[in-house]
């Protein structure tokens, strides 16, 4: 490698004319300078043999066609690779489970976006790191064998660059829908959650040694992180809420959605929703949700503002599973007590019911309305 003639970035030391033309088509500064210096007159192709090393180059008509083709190809590649239906469609062809659900059409497919549950998991991990401090997650599998496979970039053992020179990445032409505003609101509401998760991590570790809960520590942590993050994402009724729920709905509509997601609506569904509405809560929406473990429906309630001034409360109902949890006991995430943001789960008629709120009063109201067992244990 050597410095380019204008000193702008590295350029290959000895590029062929073909490479130069392609680099020009790609807008590489060093190639653009050389070709623009050669003027725009066609016909320079034959005479230009050896010009690559000498400096200025002018393009022939054929090379101009080539440049147009390369630029068109780049645009087309950009469309093909950024649209849903590309990699996912391929995954579906190769038998990937669930891949087809997110595969779109061809030409006018929506850009690929990260799934909501992935986003929620990352947000939860960030919240946990915030209270635990830098390096708090360092123990989760920094494998000494995990080295950079190819490359000259200096990295640590986990493949994280030690330093990276300024990139032009963020200024490039790709228009990615900004999630910053939503994320800021989401992260802002995670202040309490952060404390919850930090304590949860420690106590879950302790519970592993007891090994008398119905679920292992990994499952408890996954479910806890997902539900608390998902609740905090929508409980301020901001854009994320609108995106997920649309708007408040009737009990009948909620029941239909539950039936669609769970296979059938539980017999007790309307009765228990009504019971919470009777405690001065309003049903703000019902939506499908991917709680780890199986298909679920997420119900969001908020106090009507009358006699009650508590926080919104989420109720997640999960389709019947073989989850290893017996009916008759309500289980609490260990984080709940200290942070006053409890997560409770119990089994009713095969369904799992998760209740979470950022304060105890709303949790108690939902527990009561949805018939939580009085026997309470901690995972």
């Amino acid at each position, binding site marked *: 490698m050597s410095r380019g003639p204008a000193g702008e970035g590295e350029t290959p030391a000895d*590029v062929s004319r073909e*490479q130069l033309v*392609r680099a020009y088509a*790609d*807008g*590489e500064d060093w190639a653009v300078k050389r070709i623009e210096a050669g003027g725009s007159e066609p016909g320079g192709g034959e005479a230009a043999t050896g010009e690559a090393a000498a400096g200025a180059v002018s393009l022939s008509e054929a090379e101009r066609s*080539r440049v147009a*083709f*390369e630029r068109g190809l780049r645009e*087309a*590649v950009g*469309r093909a*690779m950024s649209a849903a239906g*590309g*990699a*996912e469609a*391929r*995954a579906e062809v*190769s038998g*990937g489970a669930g891949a087809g659900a*997110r595969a779109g059409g*061809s030409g006018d497919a929506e*850009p*690929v976006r*990260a*799934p909501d549950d*992935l986003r929620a998991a*990352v947000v939860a*991990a*960030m919240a946990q790191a*915030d209270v635990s401090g830098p*390096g708090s997650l360092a123990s989760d599998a920094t*494998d000494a064998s995990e080295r950079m*496979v*190819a*490359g*000259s*970039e200096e*990295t*640590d053992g*986990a*493949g*994280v*660059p030690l330093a*990276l*020179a*300024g*990139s*032009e*990445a*963020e200024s*490039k*032409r790709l228009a*990615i829908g900004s*999630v*910053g505003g939503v*994320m*800021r609101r989401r*992260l*802002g509401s995670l202040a309490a959650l952060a404390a919850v998760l930090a304590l949860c991590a420690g106590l879950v570790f302790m519970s592993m040694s007891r090994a008398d809960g119905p679920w292992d520590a990994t499952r408890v942590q996954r479910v806890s992180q997902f539900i608390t993050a998902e609740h905090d994402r929508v409980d301020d009724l901001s854009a994320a809420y609108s995106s997920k729920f649309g708007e408040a709905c009737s009990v009948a509509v909620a029941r239909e959605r539950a039936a669609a997601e769970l296979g059938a609506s539980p017999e007790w569904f309307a009765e228990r929703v009504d019971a919470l509405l009777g405690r001065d809560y309003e049903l703000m929406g019902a939506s499908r949700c991917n709680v780890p473990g199986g298909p679920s429906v997420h119900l969001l309630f908020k106090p009507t503002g009358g006699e009650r001034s508590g926080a919104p409360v989420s109720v997640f109902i999960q389709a019947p599973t073989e989850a290893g949890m017996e009916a008759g006991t309500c289980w609490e995430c260990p984080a709940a007590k200290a942070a006053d943001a409890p997560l409770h789960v119990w089994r009713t008629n095969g369904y799992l019911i998760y209740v979470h709120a950022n304060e105890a009063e709303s949790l108690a109201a939902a527990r009561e309305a949805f018939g939580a067992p009085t026997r309470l244990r901690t995972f």
Partner: protein
Amino acid sequence: MEYGGGGAGPVRSGGVERSEFENLALEQMDAVYRMALQLARHPDEASDLVQETYLKAIRSADRFEERGKGMRAWLFTILHNTFYSRVKREGRGPTAVPELFDAESRERGPGDEGRAWDLVSIDWEQVDGRLKAAIGELRPEHREVLLLWGVEGLKYREIGEITGVPIGTVMSRLHRARKILAESLEEFRSEVGWQGASGAE
């Protein structure tokens, strides 16, 4: 966002505040997921890769230096290393990517590459489906470079920094990938009876 600092001022990650670091990182999640999907070719594995990438980023946050515009490239680099480390660990493929640069540095004449580039009047939207299929057949290292070039619009130098290879290798991989796509378009032209510039109707 004001959390994280408590009463002792904002937590800092490298050159930026922790909250700013998180916002910058989250804003890139779609792009990171897109690249993960191109590497892994399966949504579940892509999600795993992204999670691992962000976990590594979070715990190395104090090492990140913004320098104006580097978050996306930084995350891409972590993702790249994570993916190839997995490939190596799981023995799913070659641990060392074959470098084509030496073999390809003596390029053939333009006529040897087919005449797809002669299709000046090509309707690109018509060939999107064919391109997707051809992209799916590429090797991961070629697909990766193609994505960074075609979707992210990066310069060769930036692609080299992310993938940890010299610019010449970036050019070589890009050339190989484009050549395969051009050949696919050539086939498509034959199938549909397209005319090139010289033979335009």
